Each structure stands twice: as C-alpha cells, then as structure tokens.
C-alpha cells in the first residue's frame, strides 16, 4: 500500500498539438479527413458567394437609392416638417434601452422599479408624441394613414407582442380550464385562428371590424391591422404557453395549494414564471415571425417598411435598383430579428434556464 507522500502530485504539460491555436485547429477544423473536407468545402462556398457580392456592393451598387430615401424608409409619408417627433421617440427608446441594460443588471431595487414604471408609461407618451392633438400648433394631429415605413412596422410589431402576450396566456389557461365552456371556447379560438393564413385575418379585420363597431365609428386601417396582428399572434402564443404549462410537475400546484396560495397567486408566483421561462425560445421565435409578418399588411394598403421600400423602385432615378432595395430591406429585418434573438439568449442566461 502506498502512502500519500509516495504519489507524484505534479502535473505534466499537455502535448503542444492539443492546446492553443494548434489544438483549436486540430479539434475544430481538421479533426479527421472528413472534417478537413467539410472545412475546405465550406470555405470554398463562402468564397464563391461572398466575394462577388461584396465586390458588387462596394463597386457597382447604387446605394443612393437608399440614402436619398432614408426618411421615407424610416417613417413613410409622415410629414417631414414634423418628423423630429419620430426621431425624439427613437432617441427616447435608445436612451431607455441603454439605461435599462445597467439598471436591470444592478441590485438597486428602487431604480429597477422606477425604470419599469417608465417603460409602462412610455408607450402612451410616445403615442401622443407621434399622433399629436387636434388643433394643436405645437403637436398638430398626424393622420394615421400617414404613418408608415419602419415606424409603422415597429408599431404593429410592438403592439402585437404586448397585446398578444396577455391574451395568449389567458387562452392557454382557458384551454387547460376545468370549466367546459371556457375550455371549449379557447380551444375553438386557438384552432380556428391557427387554421387560417395571416392574410385572411388581415382582410377579415378590414371587413369585419366595421360590422361589429357602430356605423359612425371609422377605424383607421392601422388599428385594424394592429388588432389582427395581436389576435393572430395570441393563438400561437397560447399553444407555446400551454407547452410550458405542461412541463410543470403536479407537485408545484400541490405545494402552492398546501401553503394556502390563491389560484391567482399560484399562477402568478409559481406556475407562470416557470412555464414561461421554459418556453422563451419558441415565444421569441414567434415574435420574430410576427415582426417579419407585419410586411404582409402591404396587402391591405398600409405603407409598412417593405411597402415603402418597394415604392422606391418606381421613382424615376432608381427604376432598376431592386438589388439594392431588397438587400437593404432584408438587412434591416435581419438586424432587428437578430437583436431580438440575442436579447432572448441573454434573458435565458440571466434567468438560468436549464440550471435551476
């Protein structure tokens, strides 16, 4: 038998080919002959695709199609004499976003609470800033038909996300309910909406909403599209949330019951936080889809970002600028979608998904 003093406790350095740059190359690019072939093929493919397109983008492309129309792309036909209001709104959101990054990471409870209140109030503030007031000379009323471009796409997407969330959660709970009528109604709603294309929902909102509302109330097309987006998205969201609910063990409900929590407290403190956390990836995926689907409102005549992009193509100077315009539009959609995706990954990490 050996005693502790006999054991050599020193470590040897690993072989040079296993660590550092050499080790990385060996493990990640040239691990086997098959890996090597894949690496070379991928690099070749990247070369074939990227080099000509980069060359085109830098030397041949007519980016003036974008630069001269940048204001139209941002806010569509919103009057240019008033468009500072749009930029104040954007600036405000950027500032709030950056401040939030610090505040929500810190431990200052009071600061976090204040920031949450600011976020809750900001949509109303921004709304009146953009819409203005009738007869006001300081903030004159801007008709909703003049809202367009990225501004409109964002309003549709943000409203769609904020409004579909509570509706979707309620529908998910409704579908799980013990009360047959509520369960039945939720199920029918979810299945019907999921069974029709978004475009039909948009058309229905244009045609049906006026039927439900009193005849003298005229609702702007933008509002009808907002309602359609939210109601459509809610059905999908409900199914995602239901998936999360099914992942919660019975014991969690029982523990909450045994402690005497009310049904609302049980949902709010115990079940929903856990259910929603497990379904962050599909929910964010759905919201990214919703953002991109706002481009479909062009069909009911709204001037969203993609629609105004296309309108550039009919301007005399830029008749053949399809490549530039569509590439730019794709890039813009990508940047915002990617930002949402990254934000969701950060959120997941912060909440410790899969760890706790």
């Amino acid at each position, binding site marked *: 038998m050996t005693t502790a003093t006999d054991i050599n406790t020193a470590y040897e350095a690993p072989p040079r080919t296993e660590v550092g740059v050499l080790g990385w190359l060996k493990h990640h690019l040239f691990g086997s002959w098959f890996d090597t072939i894949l690496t070379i093929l991928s690099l070749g493919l990247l070369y074939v695709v990227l080099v000509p397109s980069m060359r085109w983008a830098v030397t041949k492309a007519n980016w003036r199609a974008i630069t001269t129309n940048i204001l139209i792309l941002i806010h569509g036909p919103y009057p240019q004499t008033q468009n500072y209001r749009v930029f104040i709104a954007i600036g405000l959101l950027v500032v709030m976003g950056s401040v939030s990054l610090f505040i929500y990471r810190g431990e200052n409870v009071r600061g976090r609470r204040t920031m949450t209140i600011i976020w809750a109030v900001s949509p109303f503030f921004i709304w009146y800033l953009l819409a203005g007031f009738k007869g006001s000379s300081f903030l004159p009323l801007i008709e909703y038909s003049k809202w367009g471009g990225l501004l409109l796409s964002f309003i549709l997407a943000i409203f769609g996300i904020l409004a579909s969330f509570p509706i979707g959660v309620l529908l998910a709970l409704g579908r799980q309910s013990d009360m047959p009528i509520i369960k039945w109604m939720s199920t029918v709603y979810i299945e019907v909406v999921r069974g029709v294309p978004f475009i039909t929902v948009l058309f229905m909102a244009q045609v049906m909403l006026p039927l439900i509302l009193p005849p003298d109330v005229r609702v702007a097309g933008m509002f009808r599209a907002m309602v359609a987006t939210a109601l459509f998205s809610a059905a999908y969201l409900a199914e995602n949330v239901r998936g999360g609910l099914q992942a919660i063990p019975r*014991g*969690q409900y*029982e523990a909450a*019951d045994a*402690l005497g*929590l009310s049904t609302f*407290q049980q949902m709010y403190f115990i079940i929903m936080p856990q259910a929603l956390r497990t379904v962050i990836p599909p929910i964010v995926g759905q919201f990214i889809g919703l953002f991109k689907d706002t481009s479909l409102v062009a069909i009911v005549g709204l001037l969203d970002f993609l629609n105004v992009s296309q309108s550039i193509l009919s301007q005399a100077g830029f008749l053949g600028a399809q490549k530039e315009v569509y590439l730019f539009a794709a890039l813009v959609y990508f940047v915002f979608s990617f930002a949402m995706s990254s934000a969701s990954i950060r959120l997941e990490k912060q909440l410790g998904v899969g760890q706790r």
Partner: protein
Amino acid sequence: MSEYIIECRGVKKWYGEFQALKGIDFNVKKGEVVVILGPSGSGKSTFIRTINRLEEHQAGEIFVNGIELNNDVRNIAEIRKEIGMVFQQFNLFPHLTVMDNITLAPIWVRKWDKPTAEAKAMELLERVQIPEQADKYPGQLSGGQQQRVAIARALAMEPEIMLFDEPTSALDPEMIKEVLDVMIVLAQTGMTILAVTHEMGFAKTVADRIVFFDYGLIVEENTPDNFFTNPRHDRTKLFLSQILH
C-alpha cells in the same frame, strides 16, 4: 368545541370506479403525533391528502379546528392556513431562493411584512440547521437539505398541524437521519403531526399512536409498543413480518 383538532367520519373517496377510501373514522387530539403505516396502495397517502383538500373526499365529513372541509373555498383557505404539508418529492419552487420559498406564503397569505417574514424564515432555517443556505436555489442543495427547507417552509405559516407524506422516501440513506432529527424535535415541541412514513424508528420513539391502513380502511389502531410487539390483526402481523426482516 370538540376535543379533537381533526375529526373524520366515514370518509370515502373514489378514483373513477376504484374506491381508495372505504369509510375512515379517525380523530386526532391537539399535540398528538400519529404515524400512518400501510402497504402501498392502501389509501394512506390519499387519506392525509384529503385533510387539506389536495384530494376531495366524496362522502363523509372532515372537520379541522371545528371548520368543516366542504366546497366552500373560504373554509378550504382557512383550513390550509392551519395545515403545513411536507411531500415525498419536496416540491420546493425551483425558481425561487430558499428564502423566497419560505417567505412567499407568510407574506401573501398571512399578510406579514417582509422583514417579519424573513426574520421568521431565518429562525426556522437555524432550527433546521441550514441558515447559510438562505440565498441558494433549491437545485443547489442536497436532498436532505431540500427536505429541511420544505419543513421550514411549511412551519413558516405557523400551522397548528403538520402533515408528512413519506418525507424520507426519496432521500439517500445518509440523509434520512438529518430530516428525521428535525421531525423528532418538532414532535417533542408539541406540534400535532400526522405522518405517513416507513421509518419505524420514528414511529417507535415519538408516535403517540400508530394507525395501520389496508384496502382503504383502518385495519388497526394501537400504541407503538403494542403495535410492534403485540399486533391484534393478522394483516398487521403479515405487514410487520414483511418490513422487519
């Protein structure tokens, strides 16, 4: 007011066609420690779960602290306030820290302010000997530690009665003792306890009474001494011969 804190008369329960409880008559005095034994499927877990309405009884009457357990949600809420429960699978809330697990119900059900609830929680964590774990999440604790947190969580509501549903069955052998020790101290301080457990040591040392369940019925009620040395019923004898090798 009756001398019993829990009174059950003719409690029956069915799962579909299957009858899990066939008429249980059973009373518990304040401060009494009752251990429920029985083979699996005998209805013992179902029975203690009817006492705080995790299972609904379909016939018979249950009174807790003089309040009848029926479909009146106010009665259910009132009764659940007075009953703490500890589960086999701990059932801690994994997204909350140990501290938040313990203080949630006192703050939102008992309406205590946060400092009071947290002071109480720390006192209980001292009692179950894990005060240093207050800021951890349940997933970071061992099974024995989690079950002790679950006991602290139940006690934080200052219940009159504690129900234990096989509290040590999901634990590794070396962790059973730390949980049992907490339960024994609790029993000695005068808490009314109803425990479904296979820990014969616990039953022998602290139980005032042992109730033996089989086929959804109480087959035998006895003192621990008589139950183990001089069981009356043949079914009890068979059960004891199977568990005491």
